[in-house]
């Protein structure tokens, strides 16, 4: 009887062990079957076959499509699709909105060897800290092994996203433009013309001010960046704006002096020194403010897509820019780090991850009719009147200049931004501020 018990126990144990093996062996099979029945693309089916043979890979990824970014949802959806397509890959994503604190954290991670496998990051001077660590793989090196890498990306976009040393490391998805958003219904209500020139701008400011509408929604303490760029571009023209001088150029100073003129006219909110950029944006969205200078990413969050239009920034008196001069460009892209590239298991997963996020389909999602697309996307049938207005505005640009922070050091640029409130109140001259900024940049 005792022997019978032993045999029974052994038999049950063997059955249990085999059932474990069977369960483990079936891991991933449902996904594979799903693809066999649903996916008609042969290439993908081949990938599925490979999928089952791959070692499990955990890919650490970071992007700027986080927080309140309008593309956060698209990014997460593409991540989910990627993990469904490649069941052996697990993505550990730490995407956040790109602010100064985040940039500092990323720089620290790269310095201590804690960099992710794939990161969507800046490509211009904003990335100088991280580029100094020399931890990214160049696109040429990746293409040597994966010829289809960045295959959907326009050559011009790839060039625009190259790093300051001229080497292409990042695969871009979208570019951007900055422009003057106007609540056209408010202009119509007070029989005003859109501010296509400076006189019309001044008339609009006076009229709105008299009718308790904030003429221009801006937070000088938080995000005066767009005004800094357009005022300097307008005053100096694209050529004078794009140089990096060592002494304060008179044109730049003239542009920044306009902050005081506008402030004295009452163009900004009463609490422009303390209001958040988000709250300033709410003034515009709630029709309590008539104009707001912002980027293409802002368009998607505006509730009234029918009565909001984009207008070229009017040239300031004595400005050297042509009408239609625009600030914009491509300044970010997906990088693969050497850490992932040198890991045999992660290399392929990282490449496939970037390709999934930079395919024509993914770029169409990220673009969504706002800004510039890095691939030859098809026009969207669902574009709103504001989307069309943005497209017309950016298409009609007479020049496209990248913003100042793409050319000068972060510390210098941040000093410029931090000094704008003082320039607007007259506490500091624009020339003094610019000399301080350029001295920091020259260090």
């Amino acid at each position: 009887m005792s022997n019978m018990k032993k045999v029974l126990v052994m038999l049950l144990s063997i059955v249990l062990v085999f059932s474990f093996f069977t369960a483990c062996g079936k891991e991933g099979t449902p996904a594979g079957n799903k693809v066999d029945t649903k996916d008609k693309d042969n290439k993908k089916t081949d990938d599925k076959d490979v999928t089952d043979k791959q070692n499990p890979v955990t890919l650490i990824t970071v992007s700027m499509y986080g927080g309140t970014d309008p593309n956060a949802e698209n990014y997460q959806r593409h991540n989910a699709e990627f993990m469904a397509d490649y069941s052996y890959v697990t993505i550990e994503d730490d995407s956040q909105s790109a602010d100064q604190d985040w940039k500092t954290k990323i720089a620290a991670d790269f310095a201590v060897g804690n960099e992710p496998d794939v990161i969507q990051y800046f490509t211009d001077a904003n990335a100088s800290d991280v580029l100094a660590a020399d931890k990214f793989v160049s696109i040429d090196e990746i293409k040597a092994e994966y010829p289809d890498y960045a295959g959907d990306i326009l050559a011009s976009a790839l060039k625009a996203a190259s790093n300051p040393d001229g080497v292409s490391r990042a695969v871009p998805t979208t570019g951007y433009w900055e422009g003057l958003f106007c609540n056209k219904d408010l202009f119509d209500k007070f029989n005003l013309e859109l501010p296509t020139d400076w006189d019309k701008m001044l008339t609009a400011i006076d009229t709105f001010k008299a009718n308790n509408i904030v003429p221009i929604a801006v937070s000088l303490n938080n995000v005066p960046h767009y005004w800094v760029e357009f005022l300097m571009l307008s005053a100096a023209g694209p050529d004078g704006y794009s140089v990096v001088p060592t002494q304060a150029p008179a044109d730049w100073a003239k542009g920044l002096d306009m902050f005081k003129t506008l402030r004295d006219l009452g163009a900004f909110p009463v609490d422009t020194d303390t209001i958040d950029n988000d709250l300033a944006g709410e003034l515009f969205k709630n029709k309590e403010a008539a104009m707001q200078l912002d980027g293409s990413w802002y368009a998607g969050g505006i509730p009234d897509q029918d009565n909001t239009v984009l207008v070229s920034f009017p040239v300031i008196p004595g400005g050297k820019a042509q009408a239609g001069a625009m600030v914009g460009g491509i300044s970010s892209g997906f990088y693969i780090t050497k850490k992932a590239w040198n890991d045999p298991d992660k290399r392929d997963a990282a490449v496939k991850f970037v390709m999934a996020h930079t395919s024509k389909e993914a770029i169409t999602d990220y673009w969504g009719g706002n800004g510039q697309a890095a691939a030859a996307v098809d026009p969207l049938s669902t574009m709103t009147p504001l989307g069309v207005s943005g497209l017309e505005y950016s298409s009609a640009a007479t020049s496209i200049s990248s913003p100042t922070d793409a050319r000068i050091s972060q510390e210098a640029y941040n000093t410029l931004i931090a000094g704008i409130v003082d320039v607007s109140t007259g506490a500091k001259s624009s020339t003094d501020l610019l000399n301080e900024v350029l001295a920091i940049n020259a260090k």
Partner: protein
Amino acid sequence: MLYKKKWPLLVFLVPGFVMMLVFLYLPFINNIRGSLYDMTSVVQMPGQEFKFIGLENYKNLFIDPKIRIAIINSFKMMGLTIVFQIGTALLLAILVDSIKHGQQFFRIVYFFPIVISATAIGLIFKLFYNYNGGMLNQLLEHFGKEPINWLAPSIAFVMISIPTLWSYVGFYFVILLTGINGISDEMYEAAAIDGCSKFKQVFYITLPLLRGVICTCVTLGVTGALKVFDLPWAIVPKGAPQGVTHFLGTYMYEQTFTISNFDYGSTIALLIVIFGVVVSWIVSRIIRPDKNLEYGGAE
């Protein structure tokens, strides 16, 4: 000698010391070193060299108008802390101690703000002060008044100080109330028999016997005032409006993390530590927490 073997003491002391060394003293020394270099990034990348600039940042402290505002505001906050934070807490503690019923209720009520994070309090007050649709302006509009810019440069410091002071009253209240509870009831009873009024009991019994506790509160208060950061930053970041609400903590943070001037930020951090040590020493010299003990010893 209570213990013959000393080595077990080391087992308990060394881990704490190592933690302090690694996470406090070494970063502090590194911070001093950083203030002497032109740090172009927050951490030194492999192969990157920072330029040695000596005492340049320390010289800048004397010509930077904003650090002057930050220092003045921090010292103003120290004074306000002693008067309004510890003063109010002392008053409340004495009043609550003198009631027979409901002590526990008032303890909870006054201590409650301490359990709310400073960021949340900051956000609440930010919404109170908001010009467009803020609670205070809604009340004004309800009574037919014009809205006020509650964070205008002329009044911003006061408006920031109110929640900063209010939010920590409960902390000192609990410390002082515990101190008062430690005073023997027999002293009050004896004084009452001798005809001493309640008011006089406060001055002749409570306050002298609370000297040590008050000194602790004042030391914590003034050093805490030097570290004020989260609440003002949550209400108006970057010393807004126009830099008038900068404190040493907020200015250090702005220089380090907003402007990326890491070396100057390190210099301000060292300045805060120096001020903290000096001010604590001055406070202990002025108040002399063990003065009562000295007299007791002489007798």
